[in-house]
């Protein structure tokens, strides 16, 4: 690792001003992605601004039609939260399927979304549930947030503070996990609200994406039969040692059918 200094602010304002004052600052959340990156010398921040002690950055609340999750909330906490389990069980299930128990005890929703790993789970939920990402300076709709591989709409020094998830009528997350890492080889979140259906797919492409054709088909008839094999062309999908693009295309149809079957109940 290259040398760096550490800063442990306890307010959002202090975190922002420390970031601005640092030569090349970087926020540290659960460290489950960032620390391995530092160990491999793939990043060289001058200062790590630790978010752990920042007041008001952790916790879950439910209000009417929305579940709000603060950025520093650990995957373990989302998985075990009774309000999440009651309102959006698919989200609790998703959180409980991330990596392993040790990773879930450290990793945070804010870190996962900011990182936007092409195979991460949370981006699928954020996109399918049409969540709003709240930062220190604005609100960003999910449709505008994930802009590319490991890329988001976040500006330099922009801090995610919380994520608002509208509660859907029904939703389901189905992941075909890489047997070694548990990252999604293909992960699919299907969400239905007021005759609107959103299908978000992670793990299969360079960045989480929605599929309009599947959404249209499911809006016509919210049933697994609406999803045909070959609905998603394989051309733009990832191909690697774990799975070919054709296999991923096949898995997407299978996972969407399973998700719809579960959501229908």
């Amino acid at each position: 690792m290259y040398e760096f200094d550490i800063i442990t602010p306890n307010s959002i304002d202090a975190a922002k001003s420390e970031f601005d004052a640092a030569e090349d600052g970087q926020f540290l959340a659960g460290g489950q992605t960032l620390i391995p990156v530092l160990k491999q010398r793939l990043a060289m921040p001058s200062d790590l601004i630790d978010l752990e002690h920042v007041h008001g950055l952790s916790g879950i609340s439910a209000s009417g039609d929305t579940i709000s999750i603060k950025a520093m909330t650990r995957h373990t906490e989302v998985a075990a939260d009774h309000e999440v389990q009651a309102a959006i069980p698919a989200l609790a299930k998703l959180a409980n399927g991330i990596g392993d128990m040790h990773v879930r005890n450290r990793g945070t929703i804010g870190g996962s979304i900011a990182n936007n790993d092409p195979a991460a789970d949370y981006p699928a939920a954020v996109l399918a549930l049409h969540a709003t990402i709240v930062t220190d300076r604005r609100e960003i709709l999910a449709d505008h947030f994930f802009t590319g591989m490991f890329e988001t709409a976040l500006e330099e020094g922009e801090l995610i503070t919380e994520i608002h998830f509208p509660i859907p009528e029904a939703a389901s997350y189905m992941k075909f996990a890489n047997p070694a890492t548990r990252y999604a080889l293909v992960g699919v979140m299907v969400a239905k609200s007021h005759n609107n259906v959103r299908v978000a797919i992670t793990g299969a492409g360079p960045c989480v994406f929605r599929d309009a054709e599947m959404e249209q088909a499911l809006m016509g008839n919210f049933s697994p039969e609406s999803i045909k094999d070959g609905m998603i062309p394989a051309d733009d999908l990832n191909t690697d040692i774990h799975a070919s693009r054709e296999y991923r295309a096949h898995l997407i149809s299978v996972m969407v059918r399973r998700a719809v079957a579960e959501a229908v109940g």
Partner: protein
Amino acid sequence: MPLITVHVNGVETTKEVEPRTLLSTFIREELKLTGTHVGCDTSQCGACVVSIDGKTIKSCASFAWQFDGAKIQTIEGLANGTELHPMQEAFRTHHGLQCGFCTPGMVMTAVALVENNPDISENGIREGLEGNICRCTGYQNIIDAVKTGAKAMRG
């Protein structure tokens, strides 16, 4: 350099650490508690698992300074003098280890799983050990050990 105070296996220690000192390095090289193993150093294997305020983490994927003020338990903190913790005893009787490299992380994880869920099912144990890799045993004896350890912990 930050000065941190940690409570490791009930003993309070105050030391200066470099910001980039990993918790695993701190435990092994500063505190000389070499029961915590470093297998992969890339967050994959779970040999380095320790328990912080009752929650397991991979100590190779966190910095020592992040645990200023925390209660840390390592494998050395489980036994009561010469009397093994029931989970350690269960690993011994079931041959839940061969080379023993993964064992500290396996046992720390198993204890946490049972503390969180005393009636944990076999499936729960298998899923709970997702983050711990063993190259020797083929896992079956580890599962048997955790089942017996869980029973003994329930008393």
